[in-house]
């Protein structure tokens, strides 16, 4: 029934999921390639989402399941695109399926192997704050619901193989090469975080009570390493005074990243509200340069944080953080840029909001796809105004944060847009005629 060409989607976050699902729903086969063991992306790591305070996983999980169960979606997790040949309407793609050492068709996700595995390593999904085993599922709602062996840390004791009743563990698995024929390609590789260590005056990496916002998000999450309890890493105590610092490495005029990451003011506001909900007595401060409230409902969200929850916003970019080595408390020195006064404040915990940056492996992917990146290594739009979803290569589209900073609804809308462009491309290359709606 699916005689139409298929579409390859690279990246299994919310953007890739939405693009795949839109295409599959209209009868176009979608190959969704994700390099990690599960789809879900960044949104899976979040506790709640702004400004509606929806539980992130609760609204994402049904999408992940719908997508994976759709007969027109083929998930290729733990896989990477290696080679792309051909042109719009007729690409040939080589995908490498990395060995997960577990047979996806047999594994029930029961967790017996995990219970018996003797190796513990930091869990990437929890930003290294929690531990996982060498055989693991990154998070309980993972799709596919199956284990992966991390061979780098595996000591090959074979216990997992022994205890697996489904006989799903296969430590001799080899990488598998898959060849796909697709008519269009959608890139949706998302973002990663700027290394906050580079802003050395904030002490991230040296002071244990200075966290990144993504680490803090995992602390807030009920499925996170502390079961949703906000604690200090130095002493396990409940922090009473918490400060957020915006624009760590972003909007920088001294050589880091000049752009605004677009989501930090609002997610910090969300995290601040959550702290107040966990512990109404706590004091929360948000240091900012300009409060970015440009999205639908954002200003009202910030207003609520101020008036209903008593979150305090301070205009100013702190110059330095010092740790009291005895208590682990942190002294923030800042200039309030409204009145020009220099002040100090002591807090129990600092949350940094670092710049969100393109994936480091975008460069390799761009080379494979022959598409252009901009100076930051975001994928470059053919025409930023009228063809924001087109790359310079016909038939290759993009959506979500990999194209530039945006929040979840913008990513979702753009993902649908990329699906439309891919469908349009397929319709045009099979009929040869008509004018592309946004690239000529």
């Amino acid at each position, binding site marked *: 029934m699916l005689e139409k060409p298929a579409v390859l989607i690279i990246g299994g976050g*919310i953007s890739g999921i939405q693009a795949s699902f839109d295409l599959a*729903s209209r*009868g176009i086969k979608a190959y969704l390639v994700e390099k990690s063991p599960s789809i879900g992306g960044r949104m899976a790591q979040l506790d709640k989402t702004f*400004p*509606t305070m929806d539980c992130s996983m*609760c*609204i994402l999980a049904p999408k992940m*399941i719908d997508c994976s169960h759709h007969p027109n979606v083929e998930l290729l997790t733990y896989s990477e695109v290696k080679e792309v040949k051909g042109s719009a309407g007729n690409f040939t793609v080589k995908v490498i399926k990395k060995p997960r050492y577990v047979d996806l068709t047999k594994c*029930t*996700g*029961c*967790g017996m192997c995990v219970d018996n595995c003797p190796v513990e390593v930091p869990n990437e999904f929890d930003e290294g704050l929690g531990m996982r085993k060498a055989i693991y599922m990154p998070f309980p709602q993972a799709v596919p619901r199956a284990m992966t062996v991390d061979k780098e840390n595996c000591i090959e004791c074979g216990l997992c193989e022994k205890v697996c009743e*489904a006989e799903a563990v296969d430590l001799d698995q080899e990488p598998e090469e898959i060849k796909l024929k697709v008519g269009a390609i959608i890139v949706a590789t998302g973002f990663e975080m700027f290394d906050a260590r580079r802003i050395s005056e904030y002490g991230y990496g040296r002071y244990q009570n200075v966290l990144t916002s993504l680490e803090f998000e995992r602390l807030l999450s009920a499925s996170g390493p502390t079961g949703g309890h906000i604690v200090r890493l130095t002493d396990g105590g409940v922090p009473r005074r918490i400060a957020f610092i915006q624009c760590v490495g972003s*909007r920088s005029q001294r050589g880091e990243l*000049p752009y*605004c990451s*677009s989501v930090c003011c609002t997610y910090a506001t969300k995290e601040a509200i959550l702290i107040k909900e966990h512990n109404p007595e706590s004091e929360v401060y948000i240091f900012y340069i*300009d*409060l*970015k*409230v*440009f999205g*639908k*409902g*954002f*200003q*009202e969200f910030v*207003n609520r944080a101020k008036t209903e929850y008593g979150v305090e916003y301070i205009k100013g970019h702190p110059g330095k953080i010092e740790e009291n080595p005895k208590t682990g408390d942190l002294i923030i020195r800042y200039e309030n*840029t*409204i*009145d020009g006064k220099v002040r100090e404040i002591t807090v129990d915990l600092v949350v940094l909001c670092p710049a969100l940056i393109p994936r480091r492996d975008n460069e390799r992917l761009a080379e494979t796809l022959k598409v252009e990146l*901009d100076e*930051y290594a975001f994928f470059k739009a053919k025409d*930023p*105004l*009228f*063809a924001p*979803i087109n790359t310079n290569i016909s038939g290759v589209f993009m959506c979500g944060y990999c194209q*530039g*900073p945006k929040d*979840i*609804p*913008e990513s*979702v*809308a*753009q*993902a*649908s*847009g990329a*699906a*439309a*462009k891919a*469908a*349009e491309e397929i*319709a*045009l290359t099979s*009929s040869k005629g008509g*004018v592309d*709606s*946004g690239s000529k």
Partner: protein
Amino acid sequence: MEVNDEVRIGVFICHCGINIGGVVNVPEVVEYAKTLPGVVYAEDNLYTCSSVGISKIKEGIVKHNLNRVIVASCTPRTHEPLFRSACEEAGLNKYVFEMANIRDQCSWAHMHEPEKATEKAKDLVRMAVAKARLLKPQEEPEIDVTPSALVIGGGISGMTAALCLANQGFKVYIVEKEPELGGMLRHLYKLYPTMQDASERLNQVVKAVESNKDIDVLTSTVVKQVKGFIGNFKVTVEKGNSKTLNLDIGTIIVATGAANFEPIGMYGYKQYDNVITQLQLEQLLKAGQLEKPERVVMIQCVGAREEKGRTYCSRICCMTAIKNAMLIKELYPEAEVCIVFRDLQTYGKEYERCYLDARSKFVQFIKYVQEKPPEVISEPNGKLIVRIYDALLDSEIEVPSDLVVLSTPLIPHEDTKELSQILKVSLGPHGFFFEAHVKLRPIDFATDGIYVCGTAHSPKDTAESVSQAFGVASRAAIPMAVKRLRTEAITAVVDENLCSGCGTCVKLCPYGAIEKDEKGVARVTEVVCKGCGVCAASCPERAIEMRHFTKEQVTAQALAALGRAIA
């Protein structure tokens, strides 16, 4: 396996790893389930949703000749479709499936009381069994989808969506109330951040739309009436003030754009000639009519980000001000331009750079605080003075100026409310169209088959509007591409003998699915009904029943909660 035969219920109870099994004594619940009337089989699974769990359900149905299936596990929100399709694959109607949530509503909520949680899990299973005994198969009506779309609004958003849909092979009608296509872009000069000429690109798009054989453009035309439902809308449009036209439409896109707020009575607008809005400045620049000013002062957030009323940020004004400041500088390098702002909305990867560029060209930026907004004072010689409270100096500064430009927000068009009523879709708190779900369904309406893009949704710039326009070109294409749709089986049913024709349900139905028929009684259009139950709950005559949630079924469940059997 006929459902009308003897009731044969199978119960599958999930451990969900340790999520349920770590708290609730699952084997005990299994044994309890086996004692309940109608239950012929019960088992526990480590993960009922795993492929092993799913095949266990299918095997159980065949082996034990089950005609009702219950899974006691997590939430139907995420997993009901999966278990329902397992039932279907084993030959059962998917509506003979029932779910008990013993995780979110039991083991998670009562983590520290395992014994009580086990008792509650039994209660929940007993309730599910009581309902399942009364379940009936349901049919989902199928409808055909007309492969043509209506785009309301012929601005850049509407035209972009229309072209993309036409290229995908669908017929498109664009209805534009103005005499020509183009929308807001017709009034703009240059577009940030690329400084492309707005009309140049706009003309290309208009030409492409007008020459596309699959697109019918209806200018000076408004939508008068919309009847029907997804796939089968009957739309009446009016051209000029007389001619009406009826269209058969599958899906509808709302791309009506936004208007610009006129700041009457603010900062001397309409009082002093040299106080204008950004849009007026844009038109002066476009027409080449801006006389050389000595100093221009731009005031941001005029009528936006207010304490009450228009509390929202209009998103595009900071960048519009920066762009126009740069254009003035280009035209008259000696002219001074000063932007008086609250928080600069120079978000994303491009806009901060535009701000830095403006600073390097000596555009001045002065911050004001909301509590003490600037004042515009007219001098006898016709010059203006802008008085700004500078918090840093804790004093007022006076900036002489011969042109004050007010950055005012985008606001909904006056006829937005009327259109929302015609389409039966919601508006948000500020009168913009309101999407189905802020995060994950940002361009769908709650009403199936209707979508929204561009500034009709909220203020946004050209690139953002275009992205959304491509988005709706996918959302609206999906039903048209699949051609046939299955609709909700759980719908309201009116007992004509009980209905008094009071019309309460007609008024309350959020989807416009109920109307009074020629006999004066309520009639439900099943394909429009979403099964929300508002009508059934408020019918004074108890004349409305919900399929799959009948009074009998819900009562049985409630009585079972109290430990009583249905009489």
